[in-house]
């Protein structure tokens, strides 16, 4: 079966972000960008399914500016067969991304779609679930284990308090949690080969999808800074401070 994997270009997770002086957004000029960590796990899982003979083809897709093609090339270097770039410079909310991906699902008819559970920029945790709703497919979110078994997939999910396993009919949508796998690094020869793999460029208009949103970002601010604390010299002093100064014991 074909596996579709969605990836997002986001700020590198090690970067300490800055809010713009006019509070309109976070400043992304000259900041290191990378593939969202949960998307790396999604690509890895798709490639492993191919290595196991479960997947026959892995297609990577992204929605975003021209520069997002770097992340598609990374996915190709990691083992995806071809890529689809839906190019737009707009701020695209999860719902619009889900609508675009639903069109791609309709066109490509994958047996499984794998996404990350959330992007580390907007922290929404919505796109996979919305895609499942729009395509009327079942969803296995926050997956830590994915086992395809005939026309079903068993997904072990990380839930509050432990693990839950659900069985889904295929085709299905899966979103990855951290413990699903350890993504590999792209090797130099694979990075070179990835440059020759097919990459289709489309626009939201090609799919007849409007990417505007009824949600307006009014303001972005830095969170309240914590006041600098003090260092104590001993356990006795710590207990004394917690009892008599902070009054939390």
């Amino acid at each position, binding site marked *: 079966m074909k596996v579709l994997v969605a990836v997002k270009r986001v700020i590198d997770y090690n970067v300490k972000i800055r809010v713009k002086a006019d509070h309109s957004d976070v400043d992304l000029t000259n900041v290191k960008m990378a593939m969202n960590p949960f998307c790396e796990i999604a690509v890895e899982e798709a490639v492993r399914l191919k290595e196991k003979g479960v997947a026959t083809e892995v297609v990577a897709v992204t929605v975003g500016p021209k520069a997002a093609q770097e992340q598609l090339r990374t996915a190709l270097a990691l083992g995806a067969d071809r890529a689809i770039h839906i190019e737009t410079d707009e701020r695209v909310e999860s719902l619009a991304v889900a609508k675009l991906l639903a069109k791609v699902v309709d066109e490509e008819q994958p047996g499984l779609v794998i996404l990350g559970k959330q992007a580390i920029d907007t922290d929404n945790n919505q796109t996979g679930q919305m895609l499942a*709703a729009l395509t009327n497919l079942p969803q296995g979110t926050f997956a830590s284990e994915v086992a395809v078994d005939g026309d079903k997939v068993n997904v072990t*999910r990380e839930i509050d308090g432990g693990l839950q*396993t*659900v069985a889904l009919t295929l085709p299905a949508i899966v979103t990855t949690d*951290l413990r699903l796998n350890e993504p590999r690094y792209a090797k130099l020869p694979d990075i070179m080969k990835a440059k020759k793999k097919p990459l289709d460029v489309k626009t939201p208009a090609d799919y007849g999808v409007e990417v505007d949103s009824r949600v307006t*970002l009014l303001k972005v*601010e830095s969170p309240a800074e914590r006041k600098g604390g003090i260092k*104590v010299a001993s356990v006795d002093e710590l*207990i004394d401070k917690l009892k008599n100064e902070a009054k*939390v014991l």
Partner: protein
Amino acid sequence: MSILVLADLHDGQLASATAHVVAAAQAIGGDIDVLVAGEGVQAAAEAAATLDGVSKVRVADNAVYAHQLAEPMGALLVALADDYTHVLTSASTTGKNVLPRLAALKDVSQLSEVIGVESADTFLRPIYAGNAIATVKSDDPLKVITVRTTAFDAVGSGGSASVEAVDVVVDNAQSSFVKQELAQSDRPELGGAKVVISGGRGMGNGENFKLLDGIADKLGAAIGASRAAVDAGFVPNDMQVGQTGKIVAPELYIAVGISGAIQHLAGMKDSKVIVAINKDEEAPIFQVADYGLVGDLFEILPELESKL
């Protein structure tokens, strides 16, 4: 304004998170109904009816809603949503799983992990692992919202709302429950604990987490962990505090052997008092800690336990 709150269940009982979500609903203002959906949830519905500010509890008690699988729950919410301007639930794994389905099926956006209510259409939510706070205004006819429960104080339980059955039953041929393995613990729930003590990579191994037990017992604390400790296999994943784990805001948070990566801080920096115990005095955790103690945790922890 009419608000539907999807109740959180834990082992079929009403979870404490619901009282926090009702508080967020009160901040929006308007009539508040609570939906309790599951199998064998009558007791949970009666508990929900005692929450202050709730007008009506609606109960969907049917085997198809057992374990609150996303597909039937999404369909149930779609069937009920037209009566409401807002649908809220906690940003638990269930809430995150179910609510975006409702939003997409109603063709509206969702606002995730809301931490503040400015008005009925304007909300505050953290982005970039809590390193920025966004104020967002939604012009959607239906506001679909998950609430970060630690940002709202729980409402009391002196109410007496009416309880009525919902007879909406949906089909679900797409997904089925196979099994569940919940970690057994006598300690308070991590998300609701007044005191949390967490260990990081500095604990060295899983065995050493026992050093936290005695202190946790004396303080009535929940035990957490950093992602590094979870990834190293010291403790199970559901103990993880951070952007990709649980968000906590206890009265007292004690970080032991935790460096203080952005990922971890996103999960605990709203704690009232933070204590850091770390041998590296340059560790970033000391920049957010109210009280820092530089030293070897293997000496400090037993001493702390004996002196509490």
